[in-house]
């Protein structure tokens, strides 16, 4: 948005050469991101967290503390179970300290919690994107009654007080696989926000000359949708999905914080923060560590999404 002289190629490029465009466009955005300190730092932090999540068992093996292993030696029963040592029991043995009372290793729980958070957020993003793109395309492409039906469903879902409803549904549903339930609930209430944008863009794209040209030259509906319309939605989809992941990480953490997310002993960041509430005055580290991880992860993803948008906008500006 700041400098970057708008490249006219992207606009002037006839759709016939669209097959060539994605590679250069992608490379241009990647170059812009590499030059941006915020984007590089965010990517580095996200890489670290993802690595932690993938290597969670390895971390446990090296430190010798599983996510659910109690360590009574690390807490002081005379002080109501507060961790021994300063900063919530940070030591060479427990790098990020321990939980009060039972002495579970916070590093191990953060690593395993990252798995849960990312898995849920990414699955929910994939599903909402899929649903949003398909339904948004259908509504925008066919219009008429199809559009009416889909748009009314979207209105209905967006009018719902989603958070209250998610909590209510999650608390009343039988205890099954909480992660699957969370993903389902997030998806059901999440797709309209993406579908609305896809629909709007499709509506304008359908009337553009190149789509008309494709139609006149006898292209099938499938070809028009996949070769002409979808590639033009790519940029906004990339931006929306990168911004959706931090949103869903926050939602998952929020629901777990309110006690309707993943059930113990499975660790999740939101749940760790929630159980730290009663200790925040005496053991602030217990709350600060998962809080900081959650904050930095959401921030990194948001910064990254923001920079990708700026880079792709700079390419689109005419």
């Amino acid at each position, binding site marked *: 948005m*700041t400098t970057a002289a708008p490249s006219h190629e992207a606009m002037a490029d006839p759709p016939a050469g669209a097959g060539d465009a994605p590679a250069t466009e992608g490379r241009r955005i990647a170059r812009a991101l590499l030059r941006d300190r915020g984007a590089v730092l965010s990517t580095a932090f996200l890489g670290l967290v993802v690595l932690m999540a993938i290597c969670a068992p390895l971390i446990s093996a090296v430190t010798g503390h599983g996510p659910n292993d109690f360590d009574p030696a690390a807490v002081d029963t005379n002080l109501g179970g507060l961790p021994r040592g300063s900063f919530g029991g940070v030591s060479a043995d427990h790098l990020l300290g321990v939980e009060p009372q039972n002495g579970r290793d916070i590093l191990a729980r953060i690593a395993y919690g990252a798995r849960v958070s990312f898995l849920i957020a990414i699955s929910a993003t994939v599903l909402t994107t899929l649903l949003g793109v398909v339904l948004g395309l259908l509504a925008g492409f066919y219009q008429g009654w199809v559009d009416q039906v889909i748009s009314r469903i979207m209105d209905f879902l967006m009018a719902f007080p989603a958070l209250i409803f998610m909590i209510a549904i999650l608390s009343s549903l039988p205890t099954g696989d909480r992660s699957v339930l969370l993903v389902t609930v997030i998806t059901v209430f999440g797709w309209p926000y993406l579908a609305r944008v896809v629909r709007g863009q499709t509506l304008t794209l359908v009337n553009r000359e190149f789509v008309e040209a494709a139609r006149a030259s006898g292209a099938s509906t499938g070809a028009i949708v996949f070769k002409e319309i979808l590639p033009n939605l790519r940029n906004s989809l990339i931006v929306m999905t990168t911004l959706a992941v931090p949103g869903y990480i926050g939602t998952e953490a929020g629901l777990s914080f309110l006690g309707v997310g993943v059930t113990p002993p499975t660790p999740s960041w939101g749940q760790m923060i929630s159980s730290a509430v009663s200790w925040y005055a005496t053991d602030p580290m217990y709350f600060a560590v998962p809080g900081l991880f959650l904050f930095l992860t959401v921030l990194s993803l948001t910064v990254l999404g923001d920079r990708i948008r700026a880079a792709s906008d700079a390419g689109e500006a005419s």
Partner: protein
Amino acid sequence: MARYVAGRLAGLVFLLLLVCVFTYLIFFKLSPDPALMICGKTCTPDRVAQIRASLGLDKPFLTQLWDYLSGLVAGRDYGSGPNLVHCPAPCLGYSFQSSQSVTQMIVDRLPVSATVAVGAAVLWLIVGIAAGLLSAVKEGSWWDRTAMGLALGGASIPNYVLALTLQYVLVVKLQILPFPSAVPFSEDPLLWFQSYLMPWLVLATGYACLYARLTRANVIDTLAQNFMRTARSKGLSPALTMRRHALRPALTPIVTIFGMDFAALLGGALITETVFGLNGIGKMAADSIAKNDQPVIMAVTLLAAFFVMAGNVVVDLLYTGLDPRVRVS
């Protein structure tokens, strides 16, 4: 115009009805039997049947739904004979937990939620729009970069993390604020202000950051328009071009978003109210969900949906007034 308003209102009523049916269906079909929960551990089948009858849970689903809806519009009677209780319209039933009238519970708690929402809204509008305007005018300056960096950061803090951090720093460590409690204004204005300050700050932070970014983007877009160039070339001072020409088109989209955000907040700031223990609609929602208190869950869902939809309609009507390009015929 009148036809448009009537159409929108009819749509609102229809959507509310749908939300009502859908919510009713889910809670009364899926969740565990409330009669069993009320009955407790020492329970006999007779007692359960008695409770079910008194709550009207023994009737078929559609009858229950009809009773609920007609109670909402015209009031309804519970029980029979000497135990007859009349619940005047709008009747939302009685809490399974406390046997209080749900309508009364909402009336009692709405002021708290409204105080939280209004205070936070004032804060985030002033801070967000001012910061966004300054950033747009001084685009690319250190102020712009700092403010926008902070805005990204502020928008990324989950509000319960911020709430606990503030509580730790301001209440436990520095002890400059009391622990929040919903003190009425008339009782002690200073304590009232102090106890609502943290909820306001927590809620306003995320929105202020969002609004600052939005305002900045809109104003920059507007400043690049042809009519702005014309205004400048006529020799108007920068302040005047800003006030007379730029602000209105740049801020109308903010009105839309503000209307919806504010309406959603009136339905209860669930997390903030829960963390700070403020007895508003949001906390009532959380409590009722935890205790499976279905009439209360129904009521808060409906109330929140009503606020969101009504907010939508109000925003659309306001918009036609603010932006001549979208006037309806």
